[in-house]
């Protein structure tokens, strides 16, 4: 009996090793656009192996419960993944991430409840890992929900702050740690409830003060958190698949988060606790003053169309506004028309443009924009000097020259796209409102900048019509 069990466990563990190889190879291949699709399939296969062999794991019973849970989850997952619009991808990814963290916290809670009545059963590793899993998983769950709310515009995208926020958050976190200690030593379920409740609240408080423009970093950060909570749930259950899979995501997610911070020349602490983009105390006075003295020049679609039609090189700078307006197909049509006229068209992609890592690449790919036309920041910046028109579609903070020139600006030091070095700049924008960072953009008052106000999609469509009229 024991032999059979041990053997079967060993076999399942062997299968987990195979699954882990699939996950690792998958992540490796996902890192390059050329191999990404097969990487995703390999990773999914690894996942299927892990789940399939768990079904024959000797500790797994109650198939009706497992079947029901997986059935309901599959229906929700398939419907939401199939029906979500491409522009809503960032919030969908945030949601999937949140439920992963929630699952890790629930696993810890269920194990604690099962083992707690029999104190001899819980060893130190299980207790510490369980508390960590409950804490981090709950933070990731509620934090991701707030990120979803902000991206879905159910909550204001602007940083939400209040006095003594850092003190309150620090106290809250200390309270969570204390509850974790009490739960671990007393093995009383009530402390675990306090811990989870506190951690959920902390997750909300952590993400609320973070501005919409920092969402790519936050999503990547919460992704790493969910990975870590999954890994520690693996230590609770002594399960290799969870430990390996969770650690992989925890590590790669942490690296990605740090890299994105570097792309904005800001530390993770600054992103998380800086409440970046908060208006100075006194309520936006500073912004108003700078707007008052200067005038932005408004232009018409007809004028821009003529300028574009006779340009030699045009660089399109896409941003979140393009995503919101679903303007990617119209933009592709505009670029095609220009190319037919012999105009060279390039796209400049800032690493943090949009609301998710790779957001702009995905949208432009949806519109079948040729890959060689996409330039990342390092390759695009030298091009602006020999560009006749820089067409900024719904991007803001990543084009603000204050990041280079004004040490007073909150954006100072962030690498930007040097749009202002082009001969002409046209900015497609809904209004003069500042971007998510809440910082006024000096680019708009540059004499060579013209503003074309309106929804990005209808503006681009007008440009398309205008260029057709030229020829």
């Amino acid at each position, binding site marked *: 009996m024991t032999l059979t069990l041990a053997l079967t466990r060993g076999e399942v563990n062997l299968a987990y090793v195979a699954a882990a190889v699939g996950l690792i190879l*998958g992540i490796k291949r*996902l890192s390059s*656009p*050329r191999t990404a*699709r097969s990487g*995703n399939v390999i*990773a999914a296969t690894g*996942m299927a192996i*892990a*789940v399939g062999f*768990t*079904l024959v*794991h000797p*500790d*797994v019973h*109650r198939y009706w*419960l*497992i079947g029901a*849970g*997986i059935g*309901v*989850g599959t229906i*929700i*997952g*398939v419907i939401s993944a199939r029906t979500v619009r*491409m522009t809503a991808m960032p919030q*969908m990814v945030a949601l*999937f991430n949140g*439920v*992963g963290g929630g*699952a*890790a916290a*629930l*696993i810890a*809670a*269920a*194990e604690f*409840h*099962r083992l707690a009545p029999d104190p001899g059963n819980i060893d130190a590793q299980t207790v510490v890992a369980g508390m960590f899993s409950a804490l981090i998983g709950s933070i990731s769950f509620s934090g991701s929900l707030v990120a979803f709310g902000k991206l879905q515009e159910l909550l204001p995208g602007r940083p939400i702050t209040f006095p003594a926020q850092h003190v309150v958050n620090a106290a809250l976190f200390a309270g969570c740690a204390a509850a974790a200690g009490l739960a671990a030593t007393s093995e009383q379920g009530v402390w675990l409830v306090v811990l989870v409740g506190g951690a959920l609240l902390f997750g909300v408080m952590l993400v609320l003060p973070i501005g919409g423009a920092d969402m790519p970093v936050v999503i990547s950060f919460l*992704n790493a958190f*969910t*990975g870590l909570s*999954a890994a520690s749930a693996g230590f*609770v*259950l002594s*399960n290799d*698949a*969870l430990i390996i*899979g*969770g650690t992989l*995501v925890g590590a790669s*997610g942490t690296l*990605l988060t740090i890299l994105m911070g570097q792309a904005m020349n800001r530390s993770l602490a600054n992103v998380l606790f800086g409440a970046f983009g908060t208006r100075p105390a006194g309520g936006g006075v500073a912004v108003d003053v700078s707007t008052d003295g200067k005038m932005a020049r408004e232009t018409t679609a007809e004028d821009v169309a003529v300028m574009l039609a006779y340009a030699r090189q045009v660089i399109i700078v896409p941003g979140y506004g393009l995503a919101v307006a679903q303007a990617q197909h119209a933009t592709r049509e505009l670029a095609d028309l220009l190319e037919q006229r012999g105009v060279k068209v390039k796209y400049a992609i800032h690493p943090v443009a949009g609301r998710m*890592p*790779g957001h702009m690449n995905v949208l432009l*790919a949806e519109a079948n*924009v*040729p*890959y*060689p036309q996409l330039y990342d920041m390092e390759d695009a910046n030298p091009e602006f000097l020999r560009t006749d028109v820089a067409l900024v579609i719904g991007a803001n903070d990543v084009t603000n020259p204050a990041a280079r020139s004004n040490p007073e600006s909150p954006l100072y030091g962030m690498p930007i796209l040097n749009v202002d070095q082009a001969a002409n700049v046209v900015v497609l924008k809904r209004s003069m409102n500042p971007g998510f960072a809440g910082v006024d953009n000096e680019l708009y008052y540059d004499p060579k900048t013209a503003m074309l106000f309106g929804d990005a999609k209808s503006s681009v469509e007008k440009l398309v019509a205008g260029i057709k009229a030229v020829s």
Partner: protein
Amino acid sequence: MSGTNAIHGIVLVGAMLVAGSATSGLEQVLAFVALVFGTVNVVGGFLVTDRMLEMFKQRRSPDASEEQP
């Protein structure tokens, strides 16, 4: 990044084990919710990633020969 997002759905395996060993009604409820959450993470994560990557593939196929390794 969306790809690694699906991979922490490996918690589904943990949810299955917890469902198997659950002794009380409360544990079964917790395990059920964990199963649903974990499955949504896995299924949704991989499908969304596939949808995003599919668009890159469509675009790339005509000029696949130009791709640099």
